[in-house]
């Protein structure tokens, strides 16, 4: 019996040690991932119309533990600069895209942000590092529940996750300073545009789950007029040198 008890103690001690050590185990990988993003973004700067990403966004990318947001079988690949499957036919976006999209929102600490499509909760966690309040809607119930639990466990108390249809936004909390729609539908829902504050920004990635073709940035000016910017997240000019 005593023998059993001691083994159990050792096991508990070992696992708590492992828990304490876990973040460090991925620390370097995370830093490497961010420096990779920084390098890639330098090349894309002219397309995005900005010299470099906001250091706050990069800090957020450095501190959010992406490995916590992917299924166990994909943990080893969590810090690869690529999208990964998270089950339910959904993916966690490529870190490079997450960084660019977040940066495009031009967030201030006091902002209120709406996310449509919580997925794993990773994007919400990044946003939560940068602003006061994040509201996230997920239509696939099991995914939404997992994301909510995960964010709670990781102490992202400033994120509210709701299971439901994102088309109508989150009326009770509207208007928002920024909105991020993680998967484009056949059109941008008019209710979401309404829930954007004057001066607010909305980002929508366009393309398939594993490949973002372009980023759509919707801007509402102070007069309430809407314009969009369609950004290629890549340095590419359609004409060869002579033009």
């Amino acid at each position, binding site marked *: 019996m005593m023998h059993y008890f001691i083994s159990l103690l050792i096991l508990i001690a070992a696992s708590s040690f492992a828990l304490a050590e876990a973040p460090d185990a991925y620390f370097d990988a995370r830093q490497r991932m961010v420096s990779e993003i920084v390098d890639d973004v330098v090349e894309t700067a002219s397309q995005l119309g900005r010299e470099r990403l906001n250091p706050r966004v990069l800090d957020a990318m450095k501190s959010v533990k992406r490995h916590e947001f992917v299924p166990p079988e994909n943990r080893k690949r969590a810090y690869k600069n690529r999208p990964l499957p998270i089950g339910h036919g959904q993916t966690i976006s490529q870190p490079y895209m997450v960084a660019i999209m977040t940066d495009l929102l031009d967030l201030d600490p006091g902002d209120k942000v709406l996310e449509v499509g919580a997925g794993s909760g990773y994007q919400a966690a990044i946003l939560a590092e940068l602003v006061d309040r994040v509201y996230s809607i997920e239509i696939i119930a099991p995914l939404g529940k997992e994301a909510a639990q995960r964010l709670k466990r990781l102490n992202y108390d400033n994120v509210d996750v709701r299971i439901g249809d994102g088309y109508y936004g989150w009326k009770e909390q509207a208007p928002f300073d920024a909105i991020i729609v993680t998967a484009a539908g056949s059109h941008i829902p008019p209710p979401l545009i309404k829930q954007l504050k004057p001066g607010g920004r909305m980002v929508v990635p366009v393309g398939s789950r594993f490949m973002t073709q372009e980023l759509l940035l*919707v801007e509402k000016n102070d007069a309430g007029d809407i314009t969009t910017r369609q950004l290629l997240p890549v340095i590419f000019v359609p004409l060869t040198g002579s033009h």
Partner: protein
Amino acid sequence: MKHHQHLLFVSIALLSLAALGYEILLMRLFSIIQWHHFAYMIISLALLGYGASGAVITIFQKQLKSHFAVSYTAGIALFGISAIGSFLLVQQLPFNAEEVLWDWRQPGWLLLMYLLLAIPFVFAAGAIALALSHYSDIIGKIYAYDLIGAGLGGVCIILLLFVFMPFEVLAWIGLFALLATLLAAMALHSTAAWRVTLLSIPPAIAMIWLALHSTAVISPYKELSQTLRIPGTEIVARRSSPLGLLDIVESRQTPFRHAPGLSLKADGEPPPQVGIFTDGGNMSVITRDGGNAEAFAYLDQITSALPYHLRKLQQVLILGAGGGADVQQARYHQIPQITAVELNPQIVKLLRGDYAKFSGHLYQQSDVDVHINEARGFISDSSQQYDLIQVALMDAFGASTAGLYALNESYLYTLEAFKTYLQHLQPSGYLSVSRWIKLPPRDTLKLMATAISVLKESGVDHPAQQLVLIRGWQTSTLLVKNGAFTSSEIDTVKAFCKTLGFDVAWYPGMQATEANRFNQLRQPWFYRSAVALLGDETQQFMDDYKFDLRPSTDDRPYFFHFFKWIILPEILSLQGKGGMPLLEQGYLISVSTLLQALFASLLLIILPLLFLNRGGLRTQQTIRRSSVLIYFFAIGLAFLFIEIAFIQKMSLLLHHPLYSAATVMTGFLIFAGLGSLYSQRLVEQDHAHQGVVIAVGGIAVLSIAYLLFFKSLPDTLLSLPLAVKMLFVIIMIAPLAFMMGMPFPLALSHLGQHAQQLIPWAWGINGCASVISAILATLLAIHGGFSMVVTLAVLLYLLAALSFPLATSGKNR
């Protein structure tokens, strides 16, 4: 044996029927569970099983031939069992097409898929090769039944797919194989063959049962799988046809809100909709019409609504009506005479049947005239002129932007098509073509280049005066007017765009400052490109542009092909930095399939040679192997070059790719079968070589004659009834196919007389060449058109005639 020979022939025909049917069915099944382009790759490579069968038999020739009855019967039985088993296994593999470029494990799964699916083809082709080699004195007859069976297989599967679900058709394949096994055992009269047959019955029946009780494991990333995860969404009906598997989906809790290209200034949302998915993707919708016209106001807030604002239109033609959105758009504008053309009868049936009430009897309204037809075919036959011809946005966004349609022929957007559309416009009428926006711009610019080219050809001095291009963030609409745009029309265009937040990209007299206002791109690409295309240096601009903008033609109908090799290194260097979506995947998949097929073929052709050089197999040869290789490779390539070119050419005449494929394929295989049967007589008279020379001469003359004839298909022919046209096509094909059926059995019989052990090797070479041919034909047509493909085929036949593997008296080489 003699009196049972007919049973043997029927068993061969039935086996070929099942094998070809299986090939077509696999294409359907993979299009459902994966995507069309990967289906193409997987099946092409699995068909190398034909080549592999030749290699296997060459290597194990002695053993297999001494137990012919057992190996032949077992081959057929195992084909049936593995045809079902392999597919059921393959669809369980965790292959994710979307991750191929991200994950090194995916190509491994892909390879495993080819290998598993090649197994049934190895068995089927192996059984036929054994029969050819065993009965080397009646090769002409055996090959004839092989071809005729395959010819019937194509039609048979297409008919079955109209009646049964794909998995039920898979069970039919198993059943055909089982029947062929029984016939083989009866024909061969051998106890051992009967033993094999009896042994194979329980697993065959088990597989058939499994096929009947299995469901498709659809990729979780396909549109249908994604939709079904939304609460309250369910499939309410399913319809099968060779054109695609339709799933009708209702969502009671979270409505579909399909309104592609909707203005950001729109405030409404679409009424309730029902989703129609084709092969688990390519969603279109039927929208509820509760009698309130204002519910369709959203259809007036998309780019394609522009022509309705320019003036009051009377007759509108909608090409690709689908679920009816464009028809509703026209009705919203109270057009008195709407003609709608839709290719898929099942969709029209849904709107006239189960969803008639839901859609407000849209396709039964007195102002709507619906035709089930292919768009080009309909308009060529029509003598009417329209105020507006609207080419609807038919393909899905995702597949379009990923360049997956690169290999799909489309006769909707060719130079000839535009010419026909313009001829059917009333004076001052409009042609309106909407496309998805791709960045950097591609299809929209190719459309514009096509329109400019056609206008110039028809003698218009200032094409710029007759074009308007507008765009939202998601769609663009190009208007081509039969006449110059007036200033009041231009004012309307500007007002329409301003109200809805769309951008003008071109109108006559447009200033650069007006471009790129609402949906801003880094550069005003659309406007600048329009100016360049309309300017004096069009060619220079197209050369410098990193995507292929050359207008497509009926001979080179690849509108969706944009890839230029020159940008490949640049894109590859941007991997991981957001560059991969710039890859036009369809074309590269085809190139990669070709490379893999070439590599595998090389192995499958060389490997048996090592064994042929060993031991007893060497002694009797009196035939130069290089001649065998060149001859059988050349005719393998050439046969399919011509067949594929005919399928493409005839789809314009028969107005439907499916009718064309079925008619041409069946015609070619059956008449080639008859040619093979006739060749038997030539062999018996010892005229094999002369026969080949005459056949090749005939093929060359007829092919060239047809090629010239295709260049200008008379309109009178186009407007004949379908059945008459099908008959016409078959009559045209008959003499050509008859002669094309001769070179293979003639040379094989010659081998049978002088170097029998080379028969399976030659069969394998021909199998490999056929696979390569199918892939290469499309790639060649993309660049040089189908005329070039046919010309090459003729040259290949001439090469074959020159390298006929004649027996020599000298020592083997």
